[in-house]
């Protein structure tokens, strides 16, 4: 057990105790905030695979977050109006089933990540950042001009989608669902980092020449990482849409890309629990400082600056010290 493991365990405990306390004292608002932390952390876990493990500074993960959200919005809106998405050549109807929506959200974001990644991974550095940003902005403007699903105003879904055996409109049930998914994503992410793929991807981040010389193509590693990363962030987008029962082009905007990146950087780039710590801190600050001033993001900016200048490992890195090698 390393120090980081203890910190992760403490963080997990805190994230369970806070909603438990809120639930037993009947504070539904806190439960919703905790759910939001888990979903945003999930988006960060996705980005962290590309950014932390692969060193791919994607400034366009809002694309996948938005695609996940719109997958939910499109499927659920057709289901609530009983209007099929298409009836020729085959009949495709909307659905209110979460597992189905998640599957579609992940497949659609994975496909988008494959296309965006295949093109943008041919560049690196600042060009990679700008191209990923450009793709996300393209989708942002596309959804603004897409009246079928609300255009600029977005689209409301009146009833939260369903999960077999659960009443998802009860805050604590949706919270548990989100926590379980986050837990599974963390487990997957931890295994991925230690697997052959993770070793090679991490090596490609540190020294691409080394990886090529042992006969492994860095491009393929990065593309697969980008697809996995996009699919997880897409799933987070679908959950986020369900949390708010609302989708809008904002999900695609560069602010969203920036916020997902902030979770990862605040918490600790490449740290398993980095996005969790980052998202929790972000929501906490938004909640506490947002009450003090509308300009709370000034403080967030100062904090981010401090982390980047003085605490490169983010919150987890500062507490746990340098990362010890896996294995």
């Amino acid at each position, binding site marked *: 057990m390393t120090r980081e493991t203890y910190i992760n365990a403490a963080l997990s405990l805190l994230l369970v105790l806070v909603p438990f306390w809120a639930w037993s004292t009947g504070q539904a608002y806190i439960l919703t905030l905790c759910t939001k932390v888990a979903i945003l952390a999930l988006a960060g876990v996705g980005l962290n695979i590309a950014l932390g493990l692969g060193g791919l500074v994607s400034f366009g993960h809002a694309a996948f977050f938005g695609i996940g959200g719109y997958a939910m919005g499109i499927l659920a809106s057709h289901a609530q109006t009983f209007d099929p998405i298409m009836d020729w050549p085959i009949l495709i109807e909307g659905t209110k089933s979460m597992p189905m929506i998640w599957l579609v959200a992940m497949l659609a974001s994975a496909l988008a990540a494959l296309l965006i990644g295949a093109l943008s991974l041919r560049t690196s550095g600042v060009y990679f950042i700008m191209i990923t940003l450009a793709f996300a902005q393209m989708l942002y403007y596309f959804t603004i001009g897409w009246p079928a699903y609300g255009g600029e105003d977005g689209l409301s879904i009146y009833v939260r989608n369903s999960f077999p055996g659960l009443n998802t409109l009860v805050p604590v049930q949706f919270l548990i669902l989100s926590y379980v998914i986050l837990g599974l994503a963390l487990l*997957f992410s931890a*295994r*991925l980092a*230690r*697997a*052959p*793929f*993770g*070793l*090679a991807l*991490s*090596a490609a981040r*540190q*020294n691409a*020449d*080394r*990886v*090529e*010389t*042992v*006969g*492994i*193509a860095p491009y393929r*590693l990065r593309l*697969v990482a980008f697809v996995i990363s996009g699919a997880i962030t897409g799933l987070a987008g679908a959950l986020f849409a369900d949390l708010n029962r609302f989708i809008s082009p904002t999900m695609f905007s560069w602010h969203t890309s920036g916020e997902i990146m902030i979770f990862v950087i605040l918490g600790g780039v490449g740290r398993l629990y980095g996005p969790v710590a980052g998202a929790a801190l972000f929501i906490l600050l938004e909640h506490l400082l947002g009450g003090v001033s509308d300009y709370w993001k000034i403080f967030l900016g100062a904090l981010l600056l401090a982390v980047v200048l003085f605490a490169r490992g983010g919150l987890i890195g500062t507490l746990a010290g340098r*990362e010890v*090698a*896996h*294995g």
Partner: protein
Amino acid sequence: MAEPLLQTRGITKSFGALKASDAISLDLHPGEIHALIGPNGAGKSTLIKQIAGNMTPDSGTVHFLGQDVTALDTVARARLGLGRTFQISALAMDFTVLQNAVLGALGARGGVMRFFLPVMKDRALLARAHEALERVGLQDHAATRTAELSHGQRRQLEVAVALTLKPKAFLMDEPMAGLGAGGSKRLTGFLDGLRAEAPILLVEHDMDAVFALADRISVLVYGQVIATGTADEIRANPDVRRAYLGEEDAP
């Protein structure tokens, strides 16, 4: 003589008016160490890059194991069995020494697209990695972070990673660079034994090592091979003495 494992035929590469490689034809036979020497700026690095696949020649071909590999990239050539070490260590610095070696073993075995089982518990990979570390004498540093290794130890690790690939031929770019006299001597002894496993194309500045090891030496000056021969032939060659070794202080 046996069929060469690795050969370049008329490799030419120009950067503007500068001919960095001028119709270079070299070969590497099984069991030999073929050293490539030449003054700074002679085009050694450019040649190495074209053999390894980082750079495509303007004209000419590279053959490896009887196959034309001119159009193949670094990854494909590495898979065919070309084991390269770099002049400036190219290692994953945040990894432990063992992780770097396991990466080599993984590359050699294949199966990178596995997402669940811990790679550092894979017995076959670990065995291969430990064996390579032991051969270069790094077995006691397996758990050390690579960034904390001394310069000489990094050179040893470069060689160890190449060993995990069990290559058919080695391409070594100044493996002795920056080593002390002791380290240089030890590595010389090691390479001496290694040639029986796979031949080595050795680019090296350390003349003691080159003359002690090389079965054949090629001298590169201004992008051209001006002489190829045994150590004695090279020592006696008047062109080489004039262009490179210097008339007065020939070894």
